[in-house]
């Protein structure tokens, strides 16, 4: 492996590595300068890390849906961010209904289950419809065509929900059981942050189990390998793909509720940025790979939260957090230079895609 690599080294490889090394040096230099500066105490750093972990959990939750669909269809489902939004937005109405019934505080677990069910159902329905209308007829079209219908569907959904529910903000009511803090290993977590991180882990495990060990998961993997052969083997390709979308949609709905625990405000544009970040996470971790999506989400969350303080503050750059996405993307380039198919991506992908 190493030998074949070395033999193929060319001038461009060296230039590319130099770029990578330059990025690395910049990061290290910035970090040292920041630590020398001593502006932040240890507790500030842990706070930043915890925030990053929770944020990463949210990205991971959404990224799982992206990666699931990508794993089967090899297409970026750009409308996934709107699938996420539709469930979360609708659930806020269920939540305020439950509040006015008085159930919200009296039966918190039941309320939470109802809200989760609403969000998952709406998201799954939207995902199913998007697949049925905008993707299925194009299954044999050139690869980029579904990408464009996905973008079209995304606009359509955003503005449909804007029309339906209005363009204002909709608050998501807090629950007393999720208020307050927990100290774990001497580190301070908010309960909501813990719930999100645990939720993301559980969801990752659940999806991993479904894909790897169930019958439908087997069908999904078969369809992912080769649709035509799968069809010959008696797998209903259309149904498998629909199921995938429903599953991905439901996971987006659940992600929406966990997102609302952390950021309790819903509006029609809420899917765009998290969707973009989740897409980035999925690629960072190796798109199509379920644990990879999780890992990518966490890494991205940490980068956004810790990165600006760590890398830029010491260099005296004003308004460092304005550049958090720039840092995240720079590091993404850095990682992809050395691992062209993501952190956990299969090496195979290079020849496959």
């Amino acid at each position, binding site marked *: 492996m190493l030998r074949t690599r070395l033999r193929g080294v060319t001038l461009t490889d060296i*230039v*590319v590595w130099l*770029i*990578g090394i330059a990025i690395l040096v910049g990061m290290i230099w910035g970090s040292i300068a920041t630590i020398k500066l001593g502006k932040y105490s240890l507790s500030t750093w842990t706070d930043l890390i915890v925030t990053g972990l929770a944020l990463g959990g949210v990205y991971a939750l959404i990224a799982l849906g992206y990666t699931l669909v*990508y794993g089967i269809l*090899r297409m*970026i489902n750009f409308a996934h961010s709107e699938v996420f939004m539709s469930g979360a937005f609708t659930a806020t*109405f269920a939540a305020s209904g439950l509040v006015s019934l008085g159930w919200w505080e009296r039966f918190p677990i039941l309320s939470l289950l109802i809200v989760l069910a609403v969000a998952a159902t709406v998201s799954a329905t939207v995902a199913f419809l998007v697949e049925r209308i*905008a993707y299925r*007829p*194009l*299954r*044999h*079209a*050139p*690869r*980029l*065509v579904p*990408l*464009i*219908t996905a*973008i*079209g569907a995304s*606009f*359509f959904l*955003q*503005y*449909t929900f*804007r*029309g*339906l*529910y*209005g363009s204002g903000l909709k608050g998501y009511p807090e629950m007393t059981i999720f208020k307050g803090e927990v100290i774990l290993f001497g580190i301070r977590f908010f309960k909501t942050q813990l719930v999100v991180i645990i939720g993301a882990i559980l969801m990752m495990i659940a999806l991993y189990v479904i894909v790897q060990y169930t019958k439908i998961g087997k069908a999904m993997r078969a369809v992912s390998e*080769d*649709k*035509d052969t799968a*069809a010959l083997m008696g797998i209903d390709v259309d149904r498998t793909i629909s199921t995938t979308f429903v599953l991905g949609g439901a996971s987006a709905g659940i992600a929406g509720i966990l997102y609302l625990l952390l950021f309790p405000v819903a509006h029609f544009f809420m899917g765009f940025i998290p969707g973009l970040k989740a897409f*980035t996470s999925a*690629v960072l971790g190796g*798109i199509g790979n379920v644990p990879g999506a999780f890992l990518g989400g966490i890494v991205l969350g940490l980068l956004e939260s810790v990165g600006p303080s760590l890398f830029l503050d010491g260099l005296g*750059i*004003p*308004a460092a957090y*304005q*550049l958090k*996405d*720039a840092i*995240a*993307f*720079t590091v*993404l*380039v850095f990682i*992809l*230079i050395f691992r*062209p*198919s*993501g952190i956990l991506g299969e090496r195979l992908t*290079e020849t*496959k*895609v």
Partner: protein
Amino acid sequence: MTRLSPLFRETMRSALIGGAASLLLALVGMVESFRERFIISGWFNVGQVLFLLPIWYAIYTTLRRFPDENRKDTLLAAFVGGAVGSFPLVILLLLGSVINLRAMFVNASPALYRILTFNQGVWPGTLLLILVLALLGLTAGGMLQLSQRWQRALIQGFVWLFVVGLMRDLILTVTNRWGPLAPVFRSIFASSGLTPVGGILLFLIITGLSYRRQQKGTAPKKALDPKMRWVAFAGVALIFIFLPQILGLYFSEILDNVMMYILMGLGLNIVVGYAGLLDLGYVAFFAIGAYTMGVLTSPELNANPLTYWQALPFAMLISTISGVILGLPVLKLRGDYLAIVTLGFGEIVRLLVLSDWLRPWLGGTQGIQLIAQPQIGNLVLRSQVQLYYLFLVGVAIVVFIAWRLKDSHIGRSWMALREDEDVARAMGINHVTTKLLAFATGALFSGIAGTIFAAKLTSVYPHSMNFLVSINVLALIILGGMGSIPGVFVGALVLIGAPELLREFAEYRYLVYGALLVTMMLYRPEGLWPEARRRLELHEEEEVPASDALSPSPAE
């Protein structure tokens, strides 16, 4: 229960889908918003068309699939279908009369109910709605009893009536310039939509003409002989030259935007269409071109501002270099990994120009103003009409380059890489220089577009450099037909020009735009004007009467 015949079942099913679409249009607020936009002043408005048309269309298209049914059954199915199609709206009305739906659906307003019930109160109005829709269904059934020719003519008449009525304001801005003809057009329009007389006249004329035209039959189109081709070419060129004079300032503005996107589209067409490298951050080069122009020519940031022409070569050089810089680290990446890195590049550029950190050099949030406009002799190209010609020259040059590149050695190499990178490399194509050239050329074209953009506005702001621009350019080349130069023109006209016309739909613009994008891609997945080679490939596929399972799987 007795089984319904397929005719009834299908009609009712699609009428229900149509009804659901009507319900959606009503709930997103379009029906209410357009209640004062008349097609024919005082008679009927766009809002009504929006909630009636989906049901009518659903019934009409379904019934057309059953040409052999007898007349009585068809009409009955149409009537029942119309009544069934009203159910979604009826449910809304009944539900809305009991509980306040507005807590969730902001547009479920009393005003909407009034429109849907024709102002007759809940119960009589609901019955009236069912009746109206049933009768409307009947007209769909009745239409089918006419000859094909009349059907087509009538549909054309209605479509024209709708479009002309809707586009009243735009048509008037153009015709107001046409001197003696202006009062003619003004006389057929009311303050909203057409006047009844004008509307009926228009409808009769269009229907009659369309009926007559079909009589002649469709003679097979003859291919133009080479001489005629040059004449046609000259004609097209003349039209392009005189377009802004005919259409006026506002249409020049639209044309400028279209041309700007054509410039970018031609560039991205090389990257994505020829070389097959998916780039989602194309706006970066546009930004780099615009900002280089801004930094070099604005006295705000620069003690010795250059003129447009002096700064242009620098802008071109810098955008080309930035293309190479992006190209280097992504050489090894393929497919979606490439997409995300390019997207990131676009974001990085936007964030840098927005940042407070670089504000002393790039203007930050407040952007750059007082950017120089191109000057030829003593003439400063200032208005959109004058800038149109600058765009025209730019597009002409770029089209020529893109066209020559396509069949050149490098063009072939790009396409080889697109089809199969491994094979291409095995055949001795240097993938490094080939890919970098694609990125550099694409970046150059986009940078040029950016410089004209900056000059047109005399200012640049970071907010203009958003992801949406990249998406628009990508969508237009795919809609036009990947790798096709005329496709870029068609795509830009449809995706950039049409939304300008869709301004009539104001806040529903993106809704309509999204729906349009989906429908058009479903309707023509290969693009509106596909590249000849691709069309050939698709035809080959058509000749094999293959089931889905046997046709070749999409490129992976």
